[in-house]
């Protein structure tokens, strides 16, 4: 249990990967730091700290955000999905499976953010064109792959996913 109060800190209520969590934090702390340090969810990574690289991407109420740009107070009451929340009953999400088979992850540091961006993309466009994939992932930088195998992974996962 977090202590009831500490000067300057506030209680923030989050639902993270379906599980309610209450954290006692400074309201302007970055959501990224709260996830990593308070909740030990280290899947979201810091690459640039200014919203350019997307490696800290998470879903907040279904929207793709750079968690390095969000003060945690702004996420109060929100439902958050991180990379750790995609595995269901030990089974990989189709996108995780596809990244694995297509070699969409090389060094892996951009992968959690990239996969969440792809989840968001397939939510909006279940059968995306290549241009839609390019645009949907353009906020997530990858220095290893040249993106081709990431595009393939998204296409593969889209092919497998049930049409809505």
């Amino acid at each position, binding site marked *: 249990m977090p202590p009831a109060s500490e000067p300057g800190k506030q209680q923030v209520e989050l639902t993270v990967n379906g599980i309610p969590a209450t954290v006692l934090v400074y309201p302007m702390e970055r959501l990224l730091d709260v996830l*990593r340090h308070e909740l030990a*969810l*280290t*899947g*979201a*990574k*810091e*690459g*640039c*700290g*200014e919203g*350019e*690289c997307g*490696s800290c991407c998470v879903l907040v109420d279904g929207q793709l955000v750079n968690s390095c740009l969000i003060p945690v107070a702004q996420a109060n009451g929100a439902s958050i999905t*991180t*990379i*750790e929340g*995609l*595995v269901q009953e030990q089974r*990989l999400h189709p996108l*995780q*499976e596809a*990244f*694995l*088979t*297509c*070699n*969409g*992850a*090389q*060094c*892996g*540091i*951009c*992968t*959690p953010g990239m*996969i969440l961006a792809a989840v968001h993309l397939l939510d909006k466009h279940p059968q995306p064109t290549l241009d839609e*994939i*390019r*645009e949907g*992932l*353009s906020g*997530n*930088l*990858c*220095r*290893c*792959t*040249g*993106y*081709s*195998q*990431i*595009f393939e992974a998204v296409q593969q996962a889209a092919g497998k996913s049930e049409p809505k």
Partner: protein
Amino acid sequence: MTENLIIGAAVPRKEGRDKVTGRARYVDDLTLPGMLHGATVRSKLPRGRIRKIHFDPAIQWDEYVVVTAKDIPGRNCIALILDDQPCLADDVVNHAEEPILLLAHPDRHKLWKTVQAVSIEYDALPAVFSLEESEKQTEIIWGSDNTLKTFLIEKGSLDGIWKRAEHIVEGEYFTGAQEQLYIENNGMVATFDETHGVTVWGSLQCPYYVHKALMAVFALPEERVRVVQMETGGAFGGKEEYPSMIAAHAALLAMKAKRPVKMIYDRMEDLAATTKRHPSRTRHRTAVAADGKILGGEIEIAMDGGAYATLSSVVLSRGTIHAGGPYHWPNVTIRSKAVATNAPPHGAFRGFGAPQTLFAMERHMDRIAQVVGISPVEVRKRNFLKPGMTTTTEQIIRENIDLDCMLDRALALSEYQSKKKLFAQQNASGSHRKGMGIAAFLHGAGFTGSGERYLSSLVGVEALADGTVRVLVSSAEFGQGTNTVLCQIAAETLRLPYEFVTIAQPDTSTVPNSGPTVASRTAMIVGNLVHSAALGLKQTLIGSGVLTESYTPEEFRNACRNHMSKHGELKSYSRYEAPPGIFWDDQKYRGEAYAAFAWAVYIAQVSVDLTSFNVTVDDFVALQEVGKVLHPRLAEGQIAGGVAQAIGFALYEKVVWQDGRMLNNQMTNYLMPTSMDLPPIRVFFEELGNVHGAYGAKGIGELPMDGPAPAIVNAIEDALGVSFRSIPLLPEDIQAGLSEAADSSLAVKQA
């Protein structure tokens, strides 16, 4: 001959599941009890003498651990080649961002503010910021003449050659600094205690480089220094030498604090303070016969090494040896030098000097073609190296390489000829100009010359308690696929399922020194050692009578368990031995520079927007011969990623310098290619087979960095009819080039 089952198959990446689920542990994901955060106070001046360090009295300094050069128990240097770079500046600073003082505190937010509360008084010294200033030696900032290293290659003789030449073709070419831009910044966690000495966990390529550097800084024997590689979020050479610095810093703080210390750079610090690709200038003067054949020439290379020698000598070496490209030079003189400037030291970056000199060579080939009046295709075909010919270091080409055939295949794949014709018509009007460009090149695998012999790498393969097998190497995984291909090799050698083989986390307390993870050496050199160590393990089992020549995987496991119950631990090691007949003269820079070369022909199709001067690469064909492709998907990924990085090198990535300091040290203003910026990168392999390396694999990682920039700039010239000699080539440079060309054609008309 038995068929390969696992080599050449697209098995899953060993650590892939951890990476796609977010479970992979990078250094910043590691937290130790009582851990402090560390930060660095850096020089704001490019060159000067430190007069006084002020600590703002408003800060409660007793809360902080403060480390200066005086706290270093051993030598104040980062041991590498010349050991000229201090771990912490003591008396003088030689570049902006040079580390001077270290701070640690439990609260990292407070810590970052406190870095600003340390101010340093200097007596400024005159500084040098460019190759040209350094060459003029008006100010001596390093050694006696600012020269970090020189090389001279002489083949044949240039006597009389200029008279015999039908054409003398000259050119001068420039490449800029480039940031590796791994998405994970440099970082390290360190502990220190009297019994175990120093332990560091970090993001790094070369555990034993860090190990060697820490032994020197702490004056500790090898068993009291331990280096562990965490999952590493990209490296590209940028984590070859710099991790030794940050490891020493974190460990010095940990020693003084008597607590674990984590030091993670943020992006601005990483960009400003750590290494970049060496800026370069290459001059060609080439004697060419009427038919376009090269008779001989002079190549002069200069690289900006920054303030300390670090790896400049080896980067320059590779650049020098690759300067002649995949062509036959009957006579050539190559002079090269790396000089010092007061910028942070430039360092290792994928390609390691070769992208710079190959940019010059491949631009120059197009220039020769123009002067002679033949096509870019023809000029290359007339000069390609063929089996039996010698390279500039007089290495005989023994591989059965056919570059004519590769070029033809690349031309067909890219529809080069038909597109070139079509674009020539289309370019007469409209808002865009299109063009096609070629680059042909080679990349030597492994350390140069006698390098591998000096490294004398050691590799182990051990049986685990459950009878499966584990590979023991210090070779690091940072995306390229080290874990996967080395496990494939061991599994194939032992005829075991891929799942029966794992690889140890690189940890100097448990893995032998298989050398640094650099120079496209892992698959070829280390892979070969894994192969022989695995064979050794099998022979031990057969020799002791617990296994027969033909076995099932289960029989193998039982044999391992059997053997271990009788004899205890079961490990097999293999040490590098140079192949026979290898000759290399380090003084004359002559002989077998590399055990094997990878060969490639790349073709770029570009369009230039005449309104915005934006260049887009519309199609890219990358055809290469890299020996046996161990894993088609990983190989393709390596090539595509390298091409993407090289497109950045050519068109986007510009380090803006002011007085030796990077001004645009943010991802917002140092731009790398996004998913919107890249063409379809079409990757093709030739497999001609090779005598060296595990299952015939050669190096692959660096090759794709060499060719795209010249192919693209050649294509831009094809589109615009204007020659560009310098990269990065930004829209403003294109605009300037076009208006300069318009001015001079106007001047011609008026005259």
